[in-house]
């Protein structure tokens, strides 16, 4: 018996507070329907889409994304290697958002329906066997953005089109280790109650 339960007044209060309300089947149905509706997004129905709001021009943007990735990989590599040279941590990662390609910048907009922007994520780990980027832009699904390992086996990268705006993300290492990006700011996630890394896509 707890201290509170030894007190007769508190014991009666706890009995009252512990009374479980009757099951409300209709309310539960509404909950399930609302949750199902919230999780079904254009992303879910079109595997190539990495924006919850946009479901068109994906092939074009994937192609642009690949092109942009090759354009920026040199920059990303330089940044990552220099960071590693300074601190040599176990995991080093960085994100590179396209900000120099003029044709791409023309479609950047603060509008919610603005086109996705190719965004590169880089992670450095020799020990990992699999790494993915997970975030609100891909339903936090590790299978949606697997990273490719560089020939030297240390650098992992992926470029994915992401809708402009503030996004929360992390790296999923070996399908189990949820790892924040040490180079990015982080914030508390209202869903998980824990932290996630933050990226602003589309801001110059």
């Amino acid at each position: 018996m707890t201290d509170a339960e030894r007190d007769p007044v508190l014991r009666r209060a706890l009995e009252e507070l512990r009374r479980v309300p009757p099951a409300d089947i209709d309310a539960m149905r509404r909950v399930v329907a609302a949750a199902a509706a919230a999780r079904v997004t254009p992303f879910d129905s079109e595997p190539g889409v990495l924006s919850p709001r946009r479901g068109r021009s994906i092939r074009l943007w994937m192609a642009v994304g690949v092109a942009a990735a090759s354009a920026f990989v040199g920059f990303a590599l330089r940044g990552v290697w220099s960071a590693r040279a300074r601190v040599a941590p176990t995991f080093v990662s960085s994100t590179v958002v396209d900000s120099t390609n003029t044709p791409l910048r023309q479609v950047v907009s603060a509008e919610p329906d603005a086109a996705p922007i190719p965004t590169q994520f880089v992670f450095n780990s020799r020990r990992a066997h699999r790494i993915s980027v997970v975030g609100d832009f891909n339903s936090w699904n590790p299978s949606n953005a697997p990273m490719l390992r560089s020939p030297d086996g240390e650098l992992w990268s992926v470029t994915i089109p992401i809708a402009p705006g503030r996004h929360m993300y992390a790296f999923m290492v070996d399908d189990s280790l949820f790892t924040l990006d040490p180079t990015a700011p982080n914030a508390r996630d209202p869903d998980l109650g824990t932290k996630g890394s933050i990226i602003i896509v589309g801001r110059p």
Partner: protein
Amino acid sequence: MSSFPLQRPAQAAGLDSRTISRAKLGDIDAFTAIVEAYHARCIRFARAMLRNPDEAEDMVQETFVRLYRALPRYEERQRFESWLFQILGNCCRTANTAFQRQSSRTTTDDEAVERVASPDDPAAQFDHEWSEAVRRALAEVPEYNREIFLLHYVEGFSYEEVERMTGVKQSALKMRVKRASDLLRTRLSEERR
């Protein structure tokens, strides 16, 4: 909506890990089982936590929607129930802040009590009065103490679990629970006089 099989009453919480794993993969039937198992307890917690208990159903729905969206990120080494109540606590605190800001919409406790029809049966009347007294007393407990008190004494989480959920040290948690208990005892003793 009729496609969701919700025929059974809410069960005491205690889901197997397979159900949670299936829900993580988007299995709506598995998620339905989760809702069935926890919905009533979540309503109980939300009614006790919220400044406006009428919002309880909405907040519980919001919690389950967030949970379903976040399920792919759920790490099974964490206790599922702790995770659910952590999200629910976040939703309730956010709702309380919004409710406080919208002072014009705030209903006083007395008005809320008047909305509840009084039962005719004298015994039921007594229970009803005690229930309202407990609710009024609990409403006077500061939110940060009330949440810990409810998690520990009503929902049955250990101090160790509540520490993991809230990030507050156990010594501070025990102090908060003691303060909540003291205030409840004082208020309810006054009611009985």
